[in-house]
């Protein structure tokens, strides 16, 4: 109980030291709230079209205006949070498990493990990443699962590299030798001693790729891969609205674009804050 207390105190310190982190965290809570409760709180049904009120500019009734089919954009932006969020989180969890483990194993064991993992990530890096993601979704089929998979695959090399470098410097550290002396087998050393030590830097990586994953999912939907209309999703909504900007209906593309930007921005800022929070060197 004293442990959680000190974590809270430390969190307060981190926030007071760097107000931007506090801001990012507040924004994160807002996004998370929208993702969890979005469908229950929105004023309109995001899928209900209203031919009498198409292309309405922002007003009291429709805060963000309406689109070509008269759907309420505010409701659609809020409801879309859950889908975009779900894609980003599951792809990050997937790549964290795959890339993180492959990376520390290759840094720790070296030799053949290192070569195989290294060549796989080199192969992935050899493609323009977005094109690779497009290819994966196009080949495997237009589903949300495949967007998650594609996003995870293109982030794989980033995780491998970070984890490998961090594990490599700790491979011969005194505490690793001491762990061997205490009877820890190699896999145990890897999971119980090295992994906790590289978590801080991995957390930063997670936060940064979260933003990238959201962007990637939206990007795929924007070009027509992945999520299909009429499902509310930021990428599709921007795509749908892009044709109308020139005719003056700027709100259709702007608001989902803004939501996308804020989400990515929030995760990038959160990255720094998270590192401070989990880094034991900075805790007193």
């Amino acid at each position, binding site marked *: 109980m004293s442990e959680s207390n000190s974590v809270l105190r430390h969190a307060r310190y981190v926030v007071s030291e760097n107000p931007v982190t506090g801001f990012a965290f507040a924004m994160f809570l807002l996004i998370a709230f929208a993702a969890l409760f979005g469908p229950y709180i929105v004023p309109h049904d995001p899928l209900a079209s209203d031919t009498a009120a198409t292309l309405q500019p922002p007003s009291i009734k429709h805060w963000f205006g309406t689109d070509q089919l008269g759907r309420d954009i505010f409701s659609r932006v809020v409801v879309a949070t859950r889908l975009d969020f779900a894609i980003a989180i599951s792809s990050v969890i997937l790549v964290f498990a795959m890339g993180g483990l492959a990376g520390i194993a290759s840094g720790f064991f070296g030799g053949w493990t290192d*070569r195989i993992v290294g060549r796989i990530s080199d192969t992935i890096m050899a493609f323009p990443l977005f094109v690779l993601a497009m290819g994966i979704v196009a080949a495997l089929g237009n589903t949300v699962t495949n967007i998650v998979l594609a996003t995870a695959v293109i982030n794989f090399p980033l995780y491998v590299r970070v984890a490998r470098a961090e594990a490599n410097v700790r491979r011969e*550290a*005194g*505490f690793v*030798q*001491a*762990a*061997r*002396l*205490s*009877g*820890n*087998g*190699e896999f*145990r050393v890897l999971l119980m*001693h090295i992994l*906790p*030590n590289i978590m801080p830097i991995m957390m930063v990586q997670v936060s940064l790729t979260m933003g990238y994953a959201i962007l990637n999912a939206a990007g795929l939907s924007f070009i027509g891969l992945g999520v299909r209309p009429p499902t509310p999703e930021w990428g599709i909504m921007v795509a749908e609205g892009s044709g109308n900007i020139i005719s003056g209906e700027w709100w259709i593309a702007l608001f989902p674009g803004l939501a996308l930007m804020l989400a990515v921005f929030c995760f990038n800022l959160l990255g720094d804050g998270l590192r401070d929070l989990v880094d*034991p*060197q900075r*805790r*007193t």
Partner: protein
Amino acid sequence: MAKRTPKRTGAAVARDVPISMPLLEVRDLTVEFATRRGTVRAVEHVNVTVGKGETLGIVGESGSGKSVTSFAVMRILDRAGRIAQGSVLFSGVDLTTTSDADMRDLRGREMSMIFQNPRAALNPIRKIGRQIEDVLLQHAQVGNQDVGEHAIQMLEQVRIARPRERYHAYPLELSGGMCQRVVIALALACRPQLLIADEPTTGLDVTTQKAVMDLVVELTRERGMSSILITHDLGLAAAYCNRVVVMEKGRVVETAKAETIFTKPAHAYTRKLMRATPRPGVSLRDLLPEGDSSRAPASKAPGTRRATGALLTVEKLVKEYPRKREVSLFTRLFGPKPPIEEEIFRAVDGVSFSINRGESVGLVGESGCGKSTTSMMLMRLIDKSSGLIMFDGEDIGEIPARDFARIPLRKRIQMVFQDPTDSLNPRYTAARAIADPILRLDDASGRDVRARCEELARRVGLPKELLDRFPHQLSGGQKARVGIARAIALKPDLVVLDEPTAALDVSVQAVVLNLLQDLKDSLGMSYLFVSHDLNVVRLLCDRVIVMRAGQIVEEGPTKQVLSDPQSDYTRELLAAIPHPPV
């Protein structure tokens, strides 16, 4: 040799100062650091003077403010630090009010500094000759044409053999001692009046230390320079300084002539430091402060498992490494396979010795002699190339290192590491670290484990409250205790101590060495004490093995080896240790 005063331009310093005036006068200096928990005074009201041609020693343990004082003099405090009070007069000019541009000009030309880690002080991708030229050109000491010759002369003066060839060497091609010589050449290139040496020989071998210190003293004397030697080693200060300043917790506690401070130390802290310094003619217990309750003579009562006979026998142990060439990752992965007959480097070259039950054996040698490799093989952390390691009648050398962690024998051979910080997992509390071997190798349940951790903590003198702290919340001595507690947790038969006190202050070292002795007596363990410091080995070990270049050059009872060494190398090692006059 006559003192030469080269022409200096743009001097911010008055040249014609009266002889009686000290070169450097630090008056009432207070340095503050802004930290998370408010300002901390690292140095308080310090007064230090350095006369012309004088060598002043500043001695103190970590956190005493000795380095901060010198950084303040050079005005190279990091951003959080500031001089809050006092003045620093250099040749009569107050350096605390000098402009940054003038300070840059002064540094290197009028005063220069040597740091602890010579390799870090040199630019790794620039030839050493070029680096000396940079300093000369920076301060417009010589013209562009002669600068190369001057650099070579400097290398010659710091006794670097074949200076013309070495001019083109990169720092990584030189040994630690050689790098420190280059750093000295850099520091002295512009013939400064003051040289500040901050732990210049920490991390160097004793014989190298002697060579480097002799060189510094000779060069500074030759040039009539003043110097400040900052060190934690009383012996070193005594051997090379005119006057010594002793600092404790940011304050100067005593200033005296080098001879008198050791024979008649006035301040209690100086006396404590003196006592704690291992030196010939004292026993382990003498190192502890007077009136310490644990100073009772070591109980010679037989340990629980004390028996005679060899516990560990090593025969013709060899460890070979393929000589590493700098190969890029690309060539290593895709390049042609190296030819089968590769050059081989023998780190350990046919070593044979034995350790009896309840005995402590010292393994002494300079860096690169193979002592650590030997101990790692005994620990079964690395595999041998050939030879025999018999532990209690079993050939443990045959068991691959990667499998050794999970067999019951692991319990009986443990180790205390050199760097207490590095050897503790930063994410584990002290209790978790101590519990690790118990959880892995002994079957014990949760509550039982905690009780055993507390018992071990009591044994090693670690307060129970500290068990829930993380390593970064513990002091060096406390971390060392955690490391020792972890090593003895399973009551091993053999403990390898790999320079367990090298990273500790002398007073902490004294306590830890005594603790190790007590633990050995009560638990009946055998020790293999790996060290470069013969004075420390002498205190703890029954027998000494001296290694050089992978081979044993001398072996025998400690007293005999130290008083009547048979090999030239042992004699050389002994002679290189600076001793405080007792």
